């Protein structure tokens, strides 16, 4: 017994001239695969770019104004956080650190090499490992156990020729030639030129070394979950913010990056949009062909009791079957192309050049939207089908 006659008829009609139907399904699948591939690659490129640019940087910063003489250091940062908490729950930040830092000259007295570096001390307030040291450690370990231990960036390691266990000497910012030696316990490589020139020390030691008191810091750094919300969150933070410090967010100083990302997103949107239109037109054209081919059958089905709504359903089901197959095979194609792409873009060590980012919600929405376009194309075709009058077919023959 047939449970859903319209679906049953649609299925049989779809099977009619199967090769041609399969070619259209294939064309839709390729379209879907290109659409998803473009989306994944652009999303991944953006995510990788954002991670590389902003992953190890503050998204929102509080620091003294450039020309400030009296308040040239952040004092009692807890008060600032408490103030911020009035407008924005600080637990909504991904990471927060108090940072003390300064430019110093570093020496390796064994080989007489020297280099300008930044000596940095961190107090983790929310989250851990703001600068991703553990993740990027190439030698030694990342746990500073005493004030005379430091972790250095790859640039210092290379230029000063320092290794684990060696002593790095930092010159104090006094008029005298005063140096203090620190034992290198870890080396990290972030790929970021600025970061790879950092010397991370124990926070209290860095404060002492740079002439900061215990409750004094250079800056407060904040990372948020969605980097694009930085301007909105900054605006919220500004309400009731009554400290003599500068509040800034990453977008202000990265206009070009932002424009690039936005241009990329727009071009991705347009590519996807036009692919979707071509999918819709493919479905529409094959269904229109089916409607023309099947006009006698439609006429007879009407003569023996089908109404317009039944006829519409047949064509909507047909488009759904073709569209569903197209989307399904398209997803399989997408993953095949992606695995091929990943294999082709591996570096010498066999590590992919970037991580793929697949946004599940986007794909579900996109698939639903694709199916909507497909069903809409079916609906348009069905409008043509329901106009066939059985009496005309009978008279015509």
């Amino acid at each position, binding site marked *: *017994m*047939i449970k859903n*006659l319209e679906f*049953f*008829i649609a299925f*049989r*009609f779809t*099977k*009619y001239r199967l090769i041609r139907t399969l070619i259209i399904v294939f064309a839709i699948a390729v379209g879907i695969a290109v659409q998803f591939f473009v989306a994944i690659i652009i999303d991944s490129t953006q995510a990788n770019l954002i991670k590389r640019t902003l992953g190890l940087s503050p998204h929102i910063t509080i620091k003294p104004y450039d020309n400030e003489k009296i308040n040239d250091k952040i004092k009692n940062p807890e008060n600032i956080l408490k103030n911020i908490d009035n407008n924005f729950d600080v637990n909504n930040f991904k990471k927060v650190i108090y940072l003390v830092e300064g430019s110093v000259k570093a020496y390796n007295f064994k080989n007489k090499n020297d280099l300008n570096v930044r000596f940095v001390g961190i107090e983790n307030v929310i989250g851990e490992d703001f600068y991703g040291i553990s993740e990027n450690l190439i030698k030694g370990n990342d746990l500073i156990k005493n004030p005379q231990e430091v972790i250095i960036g790859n640039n210092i390691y290379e230029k000063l020729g320092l290794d684990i266990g060696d002593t790095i000497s930092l010159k104090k910012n006094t008029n005298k030639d005063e140096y203090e030696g620190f034992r290198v316990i870890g080396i990290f490589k972030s790929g970021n030129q600025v970061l790879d020139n950092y010397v991370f020390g124990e926070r209290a030691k860095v404060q002492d070394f740079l002439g900061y008191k215990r409750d004094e810091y250079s800056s407060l750094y904040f990372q948020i979950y969605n980097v694009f919300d930085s301007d909105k969150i900054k605006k919220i933070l500004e309400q009731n913010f009554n400290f003599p410090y500068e509040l800034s967010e990453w977008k202000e100083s990265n206009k070009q990056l932002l424009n690039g990302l936005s241009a990329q997103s727009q071009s991705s949107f347009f590519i996807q949009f036009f692919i979707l239109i071509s999918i819709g037109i493919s479905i529409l054209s094959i269904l229109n062909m089916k409607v023309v081919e099947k006009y*006698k*059958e439609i*006429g*007879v*089905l*009407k*003569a*023996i*009791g*089908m*109404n*317009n*709504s*039944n006829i519409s359903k047949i064509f909507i089901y047909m488009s759904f079957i073709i569209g569903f197959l197209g989307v399904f095979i398209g997803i399989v194609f997408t993953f095949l192309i992606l695995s091929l792409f990943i294999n082709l873009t591996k570096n010498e060590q066999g590590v992919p050049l970037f991580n793929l980012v697949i946004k599940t919600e986007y794909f579900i929405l996109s698939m639903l939207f694709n199916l909507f376009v497909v069903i809409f194309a079916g609906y348009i075709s069905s409008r043509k089908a329901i106009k066939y*009058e*059985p*009496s005309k077919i*009978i*008279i015509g*023959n």
Partner: protein
Amino acid sequence: MKKIIEVKNLVKIYHDKVDTLALNDISFDLEEGKVYAIYGQSGSGKTTLLNILGGLDSPTSGKVIVDGEDISKLNYKELALFRNKKIGFIFQFHYLISEFTILENILMPFFIGKDKADYEIIKNKAIELAKITDIEDVLYKYPDYVAGGQRQRAAICRALINDPKIVLADEPTGNLDSKNTEIIVNLFLKINKLKNTTFVIVTHNEKISNYCSKRIELKDGKIEKIT
């Protein structure tokens, strides 16, 4: 005898580039359980009349009452239901759907009607009809693989599967040779006797019209005579 179809002052005008008067004030009654021929030359209006009787076309004016129901008052959905339940159509060409087996084609009006009848009973009925029409052997074949006469007999089974009160046949033997023509006409008469179904057969073949209990002759959209 009960009137199964009443036609009152039926007029049909086709509005195209020029208006064509296809049926000109026709009135007649048909009784249940008889076999009628609507006889006339090409262009006499006989197919137009058949289409209106079967609810496939609407009259310009006049009334058509089928089994006590004025079909000119039915909306599109009601007309579809009316065609499904009360009328069996047989066309000059069989119009079986190639993608379905002969059995599925025969059962199609039942599937469309979404009746709650037991499928096995209906299937047995279809097989019974196939036995009467001698197409039992081809029930599970597709229409493209059976002979022309067998297809037309399958179309007859399809017309009868919902036990319609009336079967409307438009030149049902137009595409068949004389041997198959005789088989089909004899089948109509057999089913008429078995099930008391009223047959209205449009034909321009005098020999076929002579088999029928009554003959309505049309000429230029008017009834010339009823014999």
